Each structure stands twice: as structure tokens, then as C-alpha cells.
């Protein structure tokens, strides 16, 4: 997944109405949608149209954001497998909170596919899909730094905000550094699967790579800390985030998201 840390950032710097939206709005909207999706009852067929509505709303935003299709497939491809495999097993599991099961198929080894399990599995996957979509939308239309400053504006504690600010900054420094280390190793013929060298030695080199990255990040931390002291860093230091006014369109988008949720919760019942 990480092969593209810098790529992800690049998507976040595109220009589109969604990219321009206030970071706070995007964070609140993402949280709202995720919490709502997770909170939906676990065995209700009506959830499907609800989740579909949320997903459709997110899809529209993705279209507006003009994200590249190949990039999106890639993001989904790396995020889905683990959740999918758990969901996939659900039809074979007798969920403890369900009392009666209708067996749809009997398979060898006493495996049974149950209707309830199938419903639960697909529902949980659908919820998971909505959550992932929301997160992907957020992270590919908002740069990490914008996310942190928005979170700070939303009241994230000062010290946490400082921690995240610095983390975000140096992620890229170390990412590039790791790239350079790997390049240098390749230059000298290093290959994880080289059969000419003992496994043990290869493993040791991986260990050294990790330790050298650790030490270098520690030392970078020391130096950065010193240079921050030069600029008056002290226990009450804050990161500058500046004030930012929310536009009418931002409020509207948020209202729209709320509207979608309300429509999903109450509106769909009457259909």
C-alpha cells in the first residue's frame, strides 16, 4: 500500500470543488457518515438501500473531485481484502446473536451456508464499504497537513496537534530517505530473494535497515527539536493554523450530508 505515499499526497493537491471544501467540513462529514453507517442495525434488509444512498452520495463527491479511476481502484484494492475476507466467512458462521438459522446449502465437512449469515455478511461488508469510501474520499481530497490543521481548528488538543503536524511533515522526509537507502542497496546487488546468500544474513540486513532508519529519525528529531528551540519553542508552543471562515457552500455541503442521512433513516421507510 505504501509504495505510493507521495502519490497519495499528489492527489490531495488537485483542484476541484471537493478539494477546495473546508477541511473541517470534510472531517465532520466523514465522521457523520461513518458513525451512521456503523450504527445501523445489523440484520435489517432496509439497511441496503440506506447504505446505497450514502455510497451514491460519496460517489457523486468522488466524481466532482475528478479523482483518477486507476488511482481509486488502487486505493480500494489495498483497503478491502481483510474486511472482505471476514465478511466472506460470515455465511458459514453461526452468529451468536441470531437464534434461528435457515440453512441454504450444505457443504462437505459439515459446513452450512445460512441465510442469516449471508445477510449479516453482506450487510457488514456494505457498511465497511461505505466507511472505506468515506475515508478514501477524505484522504484523497485533503492533504495531510490540511487535515491536521482542520482537526486543530476543531479542537484537537494542542500537543496532539503538534505531534501530528511534525509527523506529517517528516513522513515524506523519511519516505524519500528510505527510497534512497533502498536504491543504494540495490546498487550493491541486494535482493531479498537472492539465493546466493544465507537467509539469516538477508534478515540481518533488513534489521540494520530498520535500525538505521530508526536512528536517523531519532537524530532528525533531536536536530529538529534544537532548531525549534531556536525559534522559541517551549512547553506552551502552538502550531499556527490561522483562522479560516467557512463558506456558505461548505455549510450547504454539510447540510446536504445531514439531509442524506435523514433521508436514509426516515425517508426510505415510506418507499
Amino acid at each position: 500500500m505504501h509504495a505510493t505515499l507521495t502519490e497519495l499526497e499528489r492527489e490531495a493537491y488537485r483542484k476541484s470543488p471537493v478539494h477546495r471544501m473546508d477541511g473541517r467540513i470534510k472531517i465532520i462529514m466523514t465522521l457523520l457518515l461513518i458513525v451512521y453507517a456503523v450504527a445501523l442495525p445489523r440484520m435489517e434488509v432496509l439497511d441496503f438501500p440506506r447504505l446505497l444512498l450514502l455510497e451514491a452520495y460519496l460517489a457523486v463527491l468522488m466524481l466532482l473531485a475528478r479523482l483518477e479511476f486507476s488511482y481509486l481502484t488502487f486505493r480500494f484494492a489495498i483497503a478491502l481484502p481483510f474486511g472482505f475476507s471476514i465478511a466472506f466467512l460470515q455465511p458459514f458462521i453461526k452468529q451468536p446473536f441470531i437464534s434461528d438459522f435457515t440453512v441454504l446449502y450444505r457443504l462437505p465437512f459439515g459446513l452450512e451456508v445460512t441465510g442469516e449469515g449471508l445477510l449479516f455478511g453482506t450487510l457488514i461488508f456494505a457498511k465497511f464499504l461505505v466507511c472505506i469510501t468515506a475515508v478514501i474520499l477524505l484522504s484523497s481530497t485533503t492533504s495531510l497537513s490540511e487535515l491536521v490543521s482542520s482537526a486543530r481548528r476543531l479542537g484537537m488538543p494542542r500537543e496532539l496537534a503538534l505531534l501530528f503536524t511534525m509527523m506529517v511533515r517528516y513522513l515524506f522526509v523519511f519516505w524519500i530517505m528510505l527510497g534512497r537507502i533502498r536504491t543504494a542497496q540495490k546498487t550493491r546487488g541486494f535482493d531479498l530473494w537472492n539465493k546466493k546468500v544465507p537467509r539469516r544474513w538477508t534478515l540481518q540486513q533488513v534489521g540494520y535497515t530498520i535500525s538505521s532508519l530508526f536512528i536517523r529519525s531519532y537524530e532528525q528529531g533531536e536536530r529538529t527539536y534544537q532548531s525549534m528551540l531556536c525559534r522559541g519553542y517551549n512547553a506552551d508552543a502552538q502550531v499556527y493554523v490561522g483562522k479560516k471562515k467557512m463558506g456558505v457552500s461548505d455549510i450547504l455541503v454539510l447540510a446536504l450530508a445531514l439531509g442524506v442521512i435523514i433521508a436514509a433513516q426516515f425517508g426510505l421507510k415510506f418507499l
Partner: protein
Amino acid sequence: MYIIETRALTHVYRGKIKALDSINFTAKPGERIALIGANGAGKSTLFKHFNGILKPTSGDILIKGEPISKKSILDVRKTVGVVFQDPDDQIFAPTVKQDVAFGPMNLGLSEEVIEKRVREALETVRLTGFEERAPHHLSTGEKKKVAIAGILAMQPEVLVLDEPTAGLDPGGAVRLIRLINQMNRYLGITTIVATHEVDIVPLLADRVCIMSSGRIIGDGTPQEIFSTDELIKKTHLRLPIVAQLMEMLQDEGIPLNVKFTLEEARDELLRVVK
């Protein structure tokens, strides 16, 4: 009165490595000073004492006549701004603006004053328009300028730069030197620059200190310093190339005075030829 003064300043790392050995250094307001010395001479260590990042193992540092104390430390850091060699050490915020605003934030200034200082600092280094850029999308030269802007925004009286031209191409280096000189001339900032690139020294300093193994072994105008050959030889440094050429000609019996900048050398050679 001196703006920076050290008295018998000694620093020992980890109880073993004597990086500074009884340094007596002074800087007057408005001076342009260059500190030259080989790798490991102790330049960076000395700089870290100027604003209280390191504490002396023995000896004293006075800033505007006052010793550095816990109470005065914020004032000291406001007075003496240090720009480190690697801009990645210094730029820690994810956008240029946030980074430049960090110092003024720590001084507890109001929102408007901070905005103003950031704008002015970015103007000075000619980076207006870069406010929202991420540092990892900047070139080496631009990063250097951001680091300098971050210090300028604190409006220091002394600007200390550790190897400012390292890693820059000649064009970038020349522009940076010009910027440093302008800050000295128009903003009245005292500038102290550490470097091993002796060729640039005559361009950005009126006074040169040579360091070697933790001691200051020479202090004077570029003229004086580069005329004492043994000093330079002893310290893994060399004369500026121009001066080397002039000396070689002198050795061949040509009657000329050794000069250090291109223009002076040209005039001197013209004098001899004609």
C-alpha cells in the same frame, strides 16, 4: 557593547570530545563575520551556544551584555536567530506559512502581527506565493530560503547561518549571498556565517575568524587572514582561488599585492601588465 560575547567558552560532548576549547569570540552590532574551519573544527557547536541550545561545559556567553539564563532564554532566541545547515532540520511544519509562523507564535504575538511578519519575511526572501506549498515539494534553494524566512519572522538582531551555500548550484549560491548582504545592509542585521567555501568568504564578510580543533586561531579582515599562509595551511583550508593565483605569480617574482575578489585581482593584474 558587544551583541555576542563568549568568555573562555569550552564545550565537551559526552565527557569526552572537546569540541570547543576556551573560545573568546565577540561580535559588534552590524558586523559581517565569517567563521571558517575544516570539518569538525567546532563551528556548529559554537553556533549552538549563541542562543543557548547547548550549555557551556565551562565559560560564559553574554548576549547584549547579559548572561543567558532560564528567564532570558526566550529573549536570547529572539535576538540571535540561527539557521542550520540542513533546512530539513528546521522546516518541521507541513506548509511554508505554518512553518514561518512558528517563531512569532512562540513569541505570543497577535494574529495580525503574525500574518504581517510572515508576509514580510517571505517577501524578503522572495517567496511570496509559496505560503501553502509543502516543503517536500520545494527545491534545495527554496528550502534554504524558507528556513531563513522562519528566522527572519522573529526579527532577530543577529542572523547566524551554518553553511548556507552547501548543496546549492553557483547561481543559487550567488543569489543567497546577495540576500544575506542585503539583510545586513538594509535591515541592519549582524550576520555570522560558517562555511568551508573560502572563495565566498570575501564576498560576505568584513571580518573572518578561523577555527581549528575547537579554538579560534585567527581573527581579522579577509586581507589579514588570507595573508598569513601558515594559518590557512594548518587548518585543511586553502586560500581563495584568486589569492592562490596571485601568490603563485608573486612567487615567480611578479611584483603585485595579493587580492581576494575577482574585481580587485583584475585591477591589480591590469596595473602590473600595463
